[in-house]
C-alpha cells in the first residue's frame, strides 16, 4: 500500500460513520472492520454534533472529515475549514456534488476547490470519477491522493467501469488511490484491491446491512484477501485453456 500524505495505514479499509442503527453498533462495527480511517460528515450536523464527534474521536483512528452534501466549491471550502478546526487535521475528503440524483462529482467545482485547499495547506482526498484527464488536473492542482468512485454513492453497484478504473490505476502508478463509494459487497472491495488500488472507502454497505458488525468483519476479510492477492502477483487471464496436469505421459488405456 502506498502512503497517504506520509501516513502508512495499518489497514486498507476506510469506513464511514453515518446511518448506523446506533453509535454503539457503529463502534462495534469499526472494531470488527479493523478500519484504519473513520470518515465523518460535517455539513448536515450544522457544527453542533459535538457528542457524536467525541464518539468518533474515541475510536482512536485517523479521522478523515468530508464535505458531503456540498454543491459548490465555495461551500466545500468553508466546510473543509470548519473540519480542520474541529478535528485538528489537514486531511479532507473533498466532495463537490454536481448532480443531486446521481450524486456525481462536479469536476469543475472539484478542481477549483482542490486548488484552493491545497494552496491553504490541506491534504486533499478528492472524490472524483474515473476520468483520467480530470485526475491529471487534480494532481496538478495539488492533490496527492485520488478517490475515484466505484459507482454512485450508496448504490452498492461495485466497480461500474472496470476498464476506466484500470486505465486510471495504470496511468498514475505512484499516486495513492482509494476506491470510494458504490461498494456493496466484500467481493467489490477485494476486487478493488486486486486491481491495485491502495484502499477502499465505504459506509452504506456496512451501516445499512442487517448485521453491520458481521458485514464489517466480512469487509475486513475481503480487503485482507484482496491486498494479499495483489502482493502475490496474480496470474494473467488467458483465452486458452492450459491443463494443470500435462497430457503427455498420462496412462493410455
Amino acid at each position, binding site marked *: 500500500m502506498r502512503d497517504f500524505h506520509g501516513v502508512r495505514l495499518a489497514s486498507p479499509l476506510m469506513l464511514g460513520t453515518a446511518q448506523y*442503527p*446506533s*453509535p*454503539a*453498533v457503529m*463502534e462495534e462495527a469499526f472494531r470488527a472492520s479493523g478500519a484504519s480511517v473513520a470518515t465523518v460528515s460535517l455539513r*448536515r*450536523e*450544522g*457544527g*453542533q*454534533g*459535538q*457528542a*457524536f464527534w467525541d*464518539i468518533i474521536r474515541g475510536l482512536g483512528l485517523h479521522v478523515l472529515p468530508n464535505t458531503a452534501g456540498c454543491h459548490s466549491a465555495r461551500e466545500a471550502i468553508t466546510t473543509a475549514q470548519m473540519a480542520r478546526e474541529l478535528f485538528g487535521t489537514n486531511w479532507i475528503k473533498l466532495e463537490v456534488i454536481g448532480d443531486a440524483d446521481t450524486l456525481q462529482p462536479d469536476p469543475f467545482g472539484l478542481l477549483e476547490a482542490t486548488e484552493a485547499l491545497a494552496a491553504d495547506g490541506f491534504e486533499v482526498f478528492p472524490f472524483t470519477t474515473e476520468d483520467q484527464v480530470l485526475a491529471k488536473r487534480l494532481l496538478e492542482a495539488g492533490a496527492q491522493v485520488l478517490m475515484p468512485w466505484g459507482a454512485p454513492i*450508496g448504490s452498492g453497484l461495485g466497480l461500474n467501469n472496470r476498464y476506466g478504473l484500470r486505465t486510471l490505476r495504470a496511468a498514475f502508478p505512484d499516486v495513492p488511490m482509494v476506491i470510494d463509494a458504490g461498494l456493496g459487497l466484500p467481493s467489490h472491495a477485494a476486487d478493488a484491491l486486486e486491481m491495485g488500488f491502495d484502499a477502499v472507502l465505504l459506509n452504506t454497505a456496512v451501516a445499512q446491512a*442487517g448485521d453491520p458488525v458481521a458485514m464489517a468483519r466480512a469487509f475486513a476479510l475481503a480487503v485482507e484477501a484482496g491486498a494479499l492477492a495483489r502482493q502475490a502477483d496474480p496470474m494473467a487471464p488467458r483465452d486458452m485453456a492450459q491443463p494443470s496436469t500435462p497430457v503427455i505421459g498420462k496412462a493410455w488405456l
Partner: protein
Amino acid sequence: MADVTIIGAGVAGLCAAHAVLGAGLTPRLIDRHGAPGPHGCSWWAGGMLAPFCEGAVSEPAIVAHGQRAAAFWAGVTPVAQRGSLVVALQRDRAELDRFARRTSGHRAIDDLCALEPDLGTPQPALFLEQEAHLDPRAALADLVTALAARGVQIERAEATPQDISGPVIDARGMAADLPGLRGVRGEMVVLRAPEIRLSRPVRLLHPRHPIYIVPRAGGVFMLGATQLESSDRRGVSARAVLELLSAAYALDPRFAEAELLETGADLRPAYPDNVPRVTIRGRVLHLNGLFRHGYLMAPALAEQATAYLTKGIKGDLLHED
C-alpha cells in the same frame, strides 16, 4: 409527605408518577416549566406505537417492551389500534423487501387502497396489524388529568436531584446532562389536509428521506421526522421541510394543497445504543435516553424504575452507574 420526588413532567416523568401511584406510593412531581408543552421533546413526538417497525433499526428490547405500550396508553387516552402501513415508491421497491426481512409482525398486502381507500394509487405495502397510534399532546394532557384526579399536581419549580432529600426519579431529559447522553435532532411538520382521509400511520421507506405520516383528528397530519447527530436547537431547517413535504407529496400529491400549521425541532436524548435506561445512583434513579421511543418505552421504563424502588427488582433497562 411524598415517598418519591420526580423531576421532569415530560412523557417519562408523567409515566413514572403514574407507575409510582400504581405501586401505592405518593409521588411529588416537579417541572421547571410546569405542565407539558413545547418546551419538552415529548410535545413534538409522532405518537406512533410501532414496536415492530422500530425493530428494523432498534435493539430487541424496544420491540419486546414496546408491544405493551398500546395497552398502557389505552387506559389513559384514546389509542387508535388500527395497525400501521409501510410503503415504498416504485423505484425503491427493494427497500420494502429488506424492511420485511428485518421486522416481524407484518403481512404483505398487494394494494394499499384496500385498507386506505382514499390514498392515491394502488401499491403494495406491509401491514402491521398490531401497531397503534395516539395523539401525543392529548396523551400528555390526559395523563396530567389522571394524575390530578389522584391528587398529584405538577409543581412549577427549578430542581435538581441534589436539592431534594429521599428517593428521586430524575426524568429531565437533555437537562439532566448525564454521561453518555447526547441529543439527536429531529424535525417535524404539522399539516391540515381535510380532503385526505387516512386512518393509520403510513411509513414511507426512502433511501434518502424516510418519513412517516401520522393522522390526527380534524384532518391534521404530522410528518416526521429527520434524525441528525446534532444538538442544534434552532428551528426547522428549510432542507428538512423540503424533504418532509416532498416525501408526503410523493405519497399523495394532494398534500401539496395542505395548510402548513406548524413546524417543530427538538433534541431526542439518547444513549450510545439508543435504548432508554434507568441509571441507578444511590437514592437517585435517572430515567433517560428515550430517543425516538418516548411513548413506546416510557411505560416500561417507569414500571422498571418503580419495581426497583419498591421491590429491588432489576429489570433489563436498569443500569448501575
